[in-house]
C-alpha cells in the first residue's frame, strides 16, 4: 500500500517507518539525531539550562529544605510539612507537590543537571577538533576579503622590498611575543601570527572538569556518611559500613573563652583495623583523622553513662558507655539507647540535660526503661537508679557506674572525592587558562607595489582595548621600522 502511495501527497502524512525505501527510513532518524545534536550544542540551550539550574538553586536557597532522612519517615515528614504550613500557608501543598522542599534531589534538578552535562559534553566534542586545528594547523594565508573587512584591519605602505617588509612585520610580531608562520605565494608573503594558542583549551578543560566533578559526586554515593557516630569516652565502637574499623575515644575536652563562646573541641581517638591499633591522635574541628579513605571529623558532644548489665545468672552482658545523644522535646532530658546482646530487649537510659532540673530524675540519677523490641510504647520495667547502686529491672541487673561524656563524630568514606578534587583543580586551571592567556591571532599580507610594499594586517577579535592597542602599536612599529 505504501509503495503505491509514494510520491503522492498522502505520503507526507504517513508514518515514515512505514515507507519501504531506505532513504525514507534513514533520513528522518538521522534528522532527529542531527536536530538533537544541534539543540545540544546550541549556546541558547546551554544558556537556558544554566539559568534554569540557577533558578532552581535559588529556590533551594529561599525555601526551607527538608532535613536529610526526614522524607523516609512519613510521620517526621508530616511534622515538617505542618511546620512549613505555618510559614508558607496554602503554597505548602503546591511546593510539596513540585518537590520544592527537596529541590536538590527533585526530578527537575536532576534532569537539568543531566541535560546540562550532556550539553557541555556535546559542546566540547563539537569544538575540540576546531580548537586543535586552529592551534596546530592554522590557516596561514587569509583571504583578501578578510584582510579588508576584518574587525581590526590596518594598512601600511612602506618603501622597501617585499622580503624586507615581511621580515619587518615578523620582527614586530615577535617583539609583541607572537609566534609567526610564513608562506610565500604568487601574491606575495602571507604571515600568520598567534599568541597563547593553547589558551582556548582552557574551555575544554573547564567543561570536562565539570563532568569530572559531577561524576565524582555520583561516585560519592557509593560511600557512606554517618553524621551521628557517638562514642562514649572509654568505649570502643565498631565503625561498620563494610569496614573492619573500630574506634575508641579516650578523652574529650570542650574549652571555652571567657565570654562563654566555644574555643575548642578536642577528642583523643584510637583507631583499630581488624583489632590492630593503626592510629592514635587528637582530632578537633578543622583537623580530622584520616585513615585510608575513611575520615573522622569532630562534630558534636554530650553526656554519656557508663552502664553495666548482668543477667540473672550474674554474667555481665553489657559493659560500656552509652551516649545520651537525643534530647527530649522539652529539652530537659538527654536520652540514650542500648541493646542487650542475645536478647530482644531495648533499653533507654534517660538523664537530666546539663543545667536543667527534673522532678523525678535528680543529678547523679538515671531513669532506665526496658522495652521489648516488638512493643516500644509500654515498658516492661522502669526505674530511676542512683549512680553506683545496682537495680533489678525486667529481670536484669543494671548498674549506672558513672557519668561520662561522649564525643560525636562524622565518619565518612567518599570514593568520589578524588575525582571531585581533580575536577575542581582542573576547573580553576581551565578558567585561569582561558582568561589569563586569551589566544590572539593576526594575519598579515605583504605585496609588492610600485614604490615598495603594501602591508595589510588584520585580526578577528571581540572588543578588547588591550589587544586593539597592541594591534595599533604593531602597525605603527611596521611603519616606523619599514622606513
Amino acid at each position, binding site marked *: 500500500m505504501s509503495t503505491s502511495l509514494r510520491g503522492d501527497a498522502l505520503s507526507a502524512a504517513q508514518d515514515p517507518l512505514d515507507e519501504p525505501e531506505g532513504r525514507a527510513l534513514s533520513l528522518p532518524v538521522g534528522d532527529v539525531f542531527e536536530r538533537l545534536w544541534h539543540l545540544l550544542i546550541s*549556546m*541558547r540551550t*546551554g*544558556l537556558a539550562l*544554566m*539559568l534554569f*539550574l*540557577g533558578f532552581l*538553586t*535559588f529556590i*533551594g*536557597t529561599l525555601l526551607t*529544605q527538608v532535613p536529610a532522612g526526614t522524607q523516609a519517615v512519613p510521620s517526621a515528614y508530616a511534622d515538617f510539612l505542618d511546620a512549613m504550613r505555618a510559614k508558607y500557608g496554602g503554597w505548602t501543598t503546591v511546593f510539596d507537590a513540585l518537590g520544592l522542599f527537596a529541590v*536538590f534531589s527533585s526530578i527537575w534538578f536532576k534532569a537539568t543537571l543531566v541535560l546540562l552535562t550532556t550539553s557541555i559534553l556535546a559542546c566540547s566534542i563539537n569544538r575540540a577538533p576546531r580548537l586543535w586545528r586552529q592551534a596546530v594547523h592554522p590557516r596561514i594565508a587569509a583571504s583578501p576579503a578578510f584582510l579588508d573587512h576584518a574587525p581590526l584591519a590596518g594598512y601600511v605602505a612602506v618603501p622597501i622590498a617585499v622580503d624586507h617588509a615581511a621580515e619587518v612585520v615578523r620582527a614586530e610580531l615577535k617583539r609583541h611575543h607572537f609566534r609567526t608562520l610564513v608562506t610565500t605565494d604568487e601574491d606575495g608573503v602571507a604571515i600568520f601570527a598567534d599568541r597563547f594558542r593553547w589558551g582556548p583549551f582552557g574551555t575544554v578543560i573547564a567543561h570536562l572538569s565539570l563532568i569530572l566533578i559531577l561524576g565524582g*559526586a555520583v561516585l560519592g554515593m557509593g560511600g557512606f*556518611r554517618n*553524621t551521628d557516630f557517638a562514642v562514649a569516652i572509654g568505649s570502643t565502637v565498631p565503625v561498620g559500613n563494610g569496614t573492619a574499623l573500630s574506634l575508641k575515644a579516650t578523652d574529650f575536652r570542650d574549652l571555652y*573563652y571567657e*565570654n562563654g*563562646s*566555644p*574555643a*575548642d*573541641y578536642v577528642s583523643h581517638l584510637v583507631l583499630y583495623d581488624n583489632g590492630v591499633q593503626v592510629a592514635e591522635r587528637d582530632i*578537633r*574541628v*578543622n*583537623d*580530622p583523622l584520616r585513615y585510608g579513605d575513611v*575520615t573522622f*571529623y*569532630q*562534630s558534636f558532644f554530650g553526656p554519656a553513662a557508663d552502664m553495666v548489665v548482668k543477667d540473672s545468672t550474674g554474667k555481665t552482658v553489657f559493659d560500656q558507655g552509652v551516649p545520651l545523644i537525643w534530647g527530649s522535646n522539652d529539652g530537659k532530658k538527654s536520652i540514650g539507647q542500648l541493646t542487650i546482646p542475645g536478647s530482644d530487649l531495648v533499653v533507654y537510659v534517660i538523664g537530666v540535660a546539663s543545667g536543667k532540673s527534673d522532678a523525678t530524675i535528680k543529678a547523679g540519677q538515671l531513669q532506665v526503661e526496658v522495652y521489648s523490641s516488638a512493643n516500644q510504647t509500654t515498658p516492661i520495667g522502669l526505674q530511676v537508679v542512683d549512680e553506683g547502686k545496682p537495680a533489678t529491672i525486667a529481670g536484669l541487673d543494671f548498674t549506672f557506674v558513672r557519668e561520662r561524656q561522649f564525643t560525636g563524630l*562524622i565518619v*565518612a568514606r*567518599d570514593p568520589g*572525592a578524588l575525582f*571531585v*578534587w581533580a575536577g*575542581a*583543580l582542573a*576547573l*580553576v586551571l581551565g*578558567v*585561569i587558562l582561558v*582568561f*589569563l592567556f586569551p589566544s590572539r591571532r593576526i594575519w598579515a599580507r605583504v605585496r609588492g607595489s610600485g614604490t615598495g610594499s603594501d602591508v595589510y594586517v588584520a585580526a578577528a577579535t*571581540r*572588543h*578588547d*582595548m588591550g589587544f586593539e592597542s597592541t594591534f595599533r602599536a604593531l602597525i605603527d612599529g611596521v611603519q616606523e621600522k619599514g622606513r
Partner: protein
Amino acid sequence: MEGTPFFKLSEYSFVAGLLAVGLALLGYVLAIVLSRLGVRRSGLAAAGAGGGTVSFGGPSITAGLATYGTIVAWLGLAFLTAWLILRTIAVGHGPFANMYEFSVSFSWGVLGAYLVFERRYHLRTLGLIALPVTLLMLLYATTIPSTNEPLVPALQNNLLLTVHVAVAIIAYGSFSIAFGAALLYLIQPATGRRGLPRPEILDEISYRAVVVGFPFLTLVIVLGALWAEVAWGTYWSWDPKETASLVTWLIYGAYLHARVVRGWRGRNSALLLMLGFGATLFTYFGNLFFGGLHSYAGLNQ
C-alpha cells in the same frame, strides 16, 4: 584586644577611609553637577555669542574637582588598606571573620577594583556607582559592633579563612564594577548619551570585570568546598551560603556564554549582570536571611 594600639589605629584608619570615600564621592558629584550646569551655560553663551564654541570656567573647575576626587579616593584606599593590615595584626587573623570585618573588606574590594579600572580605562563616571556602593558598605559597617569576638572552632583555620574570603572580596569587587558599567550601559540608548561613556566601552569593561571576577569566584567556591570538607566532613552540603554562591556562579557563567550568542550581547547581557550583582549581594547578605552553617561571629543571636 580592643584596647591595643593596633586596634585603636585600625579604628582611626576606618574612619579616615570612610571620610575620604565620602569626600571623593562629593567631588565627583559636584564635578558632574557643575559640568551639567557648565554645559547648559556654555550652550547659552554659545547661542549668545552667535554660534561660537566658547565655554567659561566650567570644564577646568570640574576636571580639577574630579581629579581631586580620584586622589582622595586613592587616599581612601590607602586608609582602608591600613585598616586591613592593622586589624589583621590586632585580631591575629585576616579581617574576614565577622560581618563588620567582611563589610569593610568588601568595600575595600569595590574601591580597589574601581580605582584599578579607572586607571586603565579613564572612566570616572563609573565612580558615581562604585563610590556610593563603597560608602554604603562602610556606613553599614558602622552599624555593626567592631569588637573582636574570638573565633568559634569551625572558623579556626587561618589559612583557609584568609584565602577563601580574600579571594571572595576580589571577586565581589570585580562584580560590582561589572554591575556599575552595565548600569551605565542600560541607562542610555544604544547610540549613547552625552556625558556618559560609550556603550561599547561599558560593555567591554563589564566583560573585563567578569573575566577577573569569574575565576576568583570559582576559586572561592573550590576553596570553600575544601574548607567544608575539612571542617564539616563534606565538600558540599547545600548550605544556603554555598547554594547562593552557586547561583551567582551560574549567572556569571551564563553571562560569559551569552556574549557569544547573537542578540544577547549588550542589553541582555547587561541585564544578566544586574541579576548577577543581585545574586552577589544575596550571597553576601544571605546570613541575615537564612541560618545555615556559615554563621559569623557577631551576628549570632
